[in-house]
């Protein structure tokens, strides 16, 4: 009886999904397909693209200058991820051990910067890092340095900026897995005679590994694409893949080459995402939202 009554409504409700199907296909799928097509096309002499199939764009990426950019980006990503692990893992781990009423507040404090424009947060670092800025003044007042460090527009400034933007992801991931952990296992290990370090290494670390891994993926992927951090805190000195794509697109107007670079970055990104999903078995992004 139930089914008969429900039938009429159920059959029609799928119509509601049509706008989403339409929008997604036209404005997400098609543009992405076009990106692939574009990456195999030829650049016109003056402006635009000629529909002539070529592999040249991908061959160009192999030129030493561009390979260097990829290497710089990956190095930067590794360094940033390393720093994020060092700062974020203990944070997430300690956070899980806080008393419940503190946990919620600290969580909130960690997530708020995540929603505030990274651009604005970067701007705060400009104020701190620039010549004769806050950092220079404090260090000089403490007589740690004699003359301004002028950290703005240097490599360390970019690293700090990226670590700063990406840290919440790591904290969140590590915290979620440390939170779910059964702490009695650690106690059991201690009771059985393991030292603190041993107990951490054999129990805690292994059990929080999925969180750590997902944190690594969530840091590593974006750190290759964050072009505006390198742009704002690095001046024009540090060229990452993101900056190269932007430059090719806006200044050189070599769209097919920019498309080829994007495809390579996209493939790298998807490979890491796939890894992330298989490692943590999280299929949706819902956990993050």
């Amino acid at each position, binding site marked *: 009886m139930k089914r008969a009554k429900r039938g009429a409504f159920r059959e029609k*409700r*799928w*119509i509601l999904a049509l706008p*989403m199907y339409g929008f997604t296909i036209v404005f997400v799928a098609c543009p*992405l397909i076009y990106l692939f097509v574009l990456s195999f096309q030829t650049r016109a002499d003056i402006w635009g693209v000629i529909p002539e199939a070529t592999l040249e764009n991908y061959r160009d990426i192999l030129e030493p200058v561009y390979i260097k950019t990829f290497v710089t980006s990956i190095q930067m990503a590794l360094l940033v991820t390393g720093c994020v692990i060092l700062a974020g893992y203990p944070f997430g781990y*300690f956070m899980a051990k806080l008393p419940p009423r503190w946990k919620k507040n600290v969580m909130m404090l960690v997530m708020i910067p995540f*929603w505030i424009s990274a651009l*604005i947060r970067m701007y705060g670092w400009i*104020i701190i890092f620039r010549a004769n800025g806050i950092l220079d003044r404090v260090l000089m007042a403490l007589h740690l340095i004699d003359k301004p460090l002028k950290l703005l527009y240097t490599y360390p400034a970019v690293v700090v900026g990226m670590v700063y933007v990406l840290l919440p992801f790591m904290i969140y991931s590590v915290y979620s897995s440390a939170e779910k952990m059964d702490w009695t296992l650690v106690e059991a290990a201690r009771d059985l005679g393991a030292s603190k370090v041993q107990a951490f290494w054999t129990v805690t670390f292994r059990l929080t590994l999925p969180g750590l891994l997902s944190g690594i993926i969530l840091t590593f992927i974006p750190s290759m694409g964050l072009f505006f951090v390198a742009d704002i805190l690095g001046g024009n000195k540090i060229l990452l893949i993101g900056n190269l794509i932007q430059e090719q697109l806006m200044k050189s107007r070599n769209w097919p080459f920019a498309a080829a670079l994007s495809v390579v970055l996209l493939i790298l990104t998807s490979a890491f995402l796939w890894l992330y999903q298989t490692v943590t078995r999280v299929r949706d992004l819902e956990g993050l939202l």
Partner: protein
Amino acid sequence: MKKSKIPSIYITILLILMYLPMVFIMVYSLNENKLSTSWTGFSLKWYKMLWEDENLLEGLKNSLILGGLSCLGAAVIGTAGALGMQKIQNRSKRVVEYLSTLPIMVPEIILGMVFMTFFSLIGLKLGMLTLVIAHTAFCVPYLFLQVKARLVGMDPSLEEAARDLGAGPFRVFWDITLPLIAPAICSGAILAFAMSLDDVVISIFVTGAVTNTLPMIIYTQMKLGVTPEINALCTVMLGVTLLLVLISNWVGNLSGRDGRRRSQKK
């Protein structure tokens, strides 16, 4: 076992470091000195200057229109999508769901470039329309995922009861489903609005020569250096985002509590 103080000290220090840059922006926006290297006195004049800068007000207007339209578009597409998807059980569903979340998964710069080249392919003139389409694309996932999660947690017997009592499909939607998913729609929409209000990377690629949004103006000026006006502007944007997130959180919590109470009653 003696409790170590190190964890709480570590957490406190890192949290302070996280908020320090934002605090500096706020403090310096109240500084009277133009060079903002030293503190010369309290002043609200930079905020007053913001209010008189027509370029900025134009940017603010554009940002609000853009945020409003893309948020509305995403709310309609995402909510309807989540409702309809519930009733679809084939392969296309997973493909479309996956594709629709891509805009918040792929690096922003790629999304920006993808839209820019595609709009030029189909001959759409860059401007407000293209901005709205691009922003709607990355706002849809926020709405879709939130509403979907809410629908999964919803008790289907409520809708069935309404139907058994003779309510038509519209009546059921209006009286039962919509009130239940409204908090999810609201909190998703507010987050989407906040994201749209903050976006600069994607906007740079899909905007025309004349349509500037607020973050784009900030970005351009930021590359030229530090001015007290940007300090004030950033402080305002910081405050607005913070407020939106807190409201969204509050609405979200409200719905959670509401849902629990409802299921307890049952």
